[in-house]
């Protein structure tokens, strides 16, 4: 192994990869949420369908999509490697253990929370991304141009109560993942100082709650108000 692979296969190095990919995924969440806000426009889905057509065809977005997939893959790969190593580091557990006295629940359950997010991600992609990208949606004509009617798919999906429930539960899991993860990522990079760490912690908390609440509101809105 050369110095580069050695660096990024140490536990300290793998956490650097997880933190950078994790923060990158956070930036993706912001873009994704802002785009989704168009679902609230009362135009029968026109703006949203035009937007999703743009996202599916624009070359810059298509390139970023590859980066995004790589971000997920590296994040998940190192999550698995580290979680396995961490389990192996304590083969025999304690008969009596009170971790609630010294750490938060979310910080100790990032693997579990991540797994919930991963399962959600598969369901979510299968339902929206795959038909939007590879065909299978009804068409809709907006100003004489034919678009895929992803909006209709949204309306139909969020009419099903258990589908809405999966979304809301997953967003709660994501919120807890980020409540620990956001500030943790800065620590993994060694970025810690009494000048700015309190800000990062507060910002991270607000970010996690606001972004995840924003996503969770969409299925609830369609279920109850549409």
């Amino acid at each position, binding site marked *: 192994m050369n110095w580069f692979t050695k660096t990024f296969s140490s536990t300290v190095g793998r956490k650097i990869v997880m933190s950078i990919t994790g923060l990158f995924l956070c930036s993706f969440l912001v873009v994704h949420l802002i785009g989704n806000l168009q679902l609230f426009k009362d135009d029968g889905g026109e703006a949203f369908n035009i937007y999703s057509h743009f996202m599916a065809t624009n070359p810059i977005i298509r390139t970023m999509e590859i980066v995004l997939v790589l971000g997920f893959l590296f994040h998940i790969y190192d999550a698995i490697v580290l979680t396995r190593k961490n389990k192996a*580091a304590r083969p025999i557990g304690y*008969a009596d253990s009170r*971790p609630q006295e010294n*750490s938060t629940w979310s910080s100790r359950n990032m693997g579990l929370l991540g797994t919930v997010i991963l399962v959600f991600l598969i369901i979510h992609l299968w339902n929206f991304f795959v038909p939007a990208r590879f065909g299978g949606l009804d068409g809709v004509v907006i100003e004489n141009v034919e678009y895929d009617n992803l909006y209709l798919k949204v309306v139909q999906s969020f009419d099903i109560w258990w589908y809405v429930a999966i979304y809301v539960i997953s967003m709660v899991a994501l919120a807890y993942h980020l409540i620990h993860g956001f500030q943790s990522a800065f620590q993994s990079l060694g970025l810690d100082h009494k000048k700015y760490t309190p800000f990062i912690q507060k910002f991270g908390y607000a970010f996690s709650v606001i972004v995840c609440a924003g996503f969770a509101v969409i299925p609830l809105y369609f279920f109850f108000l549409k």
Partner: protein
Amino acid sequence: MAGSNPNAKPMDLTLKVWRQKNKDAAGQLVTYPVKGISPDMSFLEMMDVLNENLLRSGEDPIAFDHDCREGICGACSLHINGRPHGPERGTTTCQLHMRHFKDGDTITIEPWRAAAFPVHKDLVVDRSAFDRIQQAGGYVSVNTGGVPDANEIPIPKTIADKAFDAATCIQCGACVAACKNASAILFVSAKVSQLALLPQGKVERQTRVENMVAQMEIEGFGACSNTGACAAECPVGISLENINMLRREYISAKATSENF
């Protein structure tokens, strides 16, 4: 005030203690009653009482580590009621007093649990992994010869204070015991920070962090998930800042050192 109370009544307790004959034997929790424990006793004195009872009845006494019994050597350990060094913060097991328990309590006593700290016997674990990490870089090379004058090298007070705080680590291993990943990073970071902060330690700072982290990995400790459990349970209050300093040292060493 938590001072001694001459009127405090002796306590009867039930202890559940991990017993294990040797490294390779399977162990189990064994229940022992102890009677007449004074609240003024330290936890280890209470263990001494139990051991005297065991000796009198011809049983093998319980092996546990201890040395100074003053909270400075780091020899004592014990995972007590689910927490390293017991329920009090900032306290080693030898400095933990029985007044923090109640008459009739059941107390579970286990060894540190980590693949890198194999159980030797009963509550004694082999912590030589820490020594090997220390040998990998936790030192400063000096020339032999005349003794240098004290205070010859100026060190700013804030830096000296930070280095001293890091230097108070007694190598007890409670950080490893507390961490869900059995990570040794708080211990390693205390050593790395202490020496990287001081002028004498700066000479070897790059190889130090690289070699100590490499040895930490070889010993089989887990990764850091930033849960903060280590610092919360550390008896001398080593802070999480040290871990972040280790990371900065690590990143800068990896980016600039001659190690390939």
